[in-house]
Each structure stands twice: as C-alpha cells, then as structure tokens.
C-alpha cells in the first residue's frame, strides 16, 4: 500500500520508550503544517500498548510491522490503525520514497 501522497515527515519507531518524544514531535509538526506518517517496528510496536498512544489517532498516518507485533505477543486492535495498517516492512520502505523528511526514534 502506498502512503498518503501528502506525507511530509516519516518517522520510524524502533525503540520502546519514545512516546513522549513522538507526541511532542507530532504536535510540533501539526503547528508547522507537516503531515506525519509513523511506522512502528521491532520493540517500537510496544509503544502501541501505552495509554497515551491513542492521542496519536487521527493526527498521523499510523502503521506497524505485524511480524514484530506478533513476535512481542501482542494482539487485538490498536487505536488509529485499521487492519490494513498491520503491515510489512515494505510499508516502511515506501515511506522512505514518499516522505521528504525522515526521522528514527
């Protein structure tokens, strides 16, 4: 699946303790008119289990690596993600093409 064409800032999340940074960066991007896309992989999928994760819903295009999600024993729905957003690493790779700015957390 191709990311939204208006993505400005792509963020790869591969660490677990980054939600405070992530929320603040998304807020700053909103203030500066940047559309954000975020892909969670590796232990980064654990971020989806934090209560404040739901604050990201509707503010950034979200997707995660389904293999990582299952590998960490996670299941069930995640706020802000549809079933197509449980994706593969190809989604992250497409983000690299479509987002002019890119960040790793």
């Amino acid at each position, binding site marked *: 699946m191709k990311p939204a064409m208006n993505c400005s*800032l792509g963020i790869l999340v591969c*660490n677990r303790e980054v939600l405070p940074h992530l929320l603040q960066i998304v807020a*700053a991007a909103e*203030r*500066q008119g*940047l559309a954000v896309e975020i892909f969670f992989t590796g232990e980064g999928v654990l971020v989806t289990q934090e209560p404040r994760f739901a604050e990201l819903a509707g503010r950034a295009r979200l997707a995660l690596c389904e293999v990582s999600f299952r590998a960490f024993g996670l299941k069930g729905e995640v706020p802000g993600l549809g079933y197509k957003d449980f994706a593969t690493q190809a989604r992250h790779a497409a983000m690299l093409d479509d987002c002019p700015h*890119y*960040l790793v*957390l």
Partner: protein
Amino acid sequence: MRILHIYRHPPDQVTRTLVNILSRHRQATEFPLYQEPVAYDRLVSLIKEHDQVISWW
C-alpha cells in the same frame, strides 16, 4: 548539503567518528534529543531545513 545529526543518547566514540566523517565538507548541525527540555518546534524546523537527517542511537 546540509546534514542534521540528532542524538537520542549522548554520542560515544563510534558515533562521533561516523558523525565527523559524514560532516566533512558539509554544513552540519547537531541536536541533542536526550537533553531536557527539548525544543520540539526547533527540532521540526531543523528537520525541514536540512537535506539529510540522521537520528543516531
């Protein structure tokens, strides 16, 4: 070529070595994400202004 180095943790010698090589003959800026308080608006502005952003370990 403008390159932004973001440090998620204090850079060690390995990171420093790579940063020095990558910054050679380039306009480099450094941003310590590990240092509170973080100026997030400035961070996003810097991301927009640079051609390449590297978020080090």
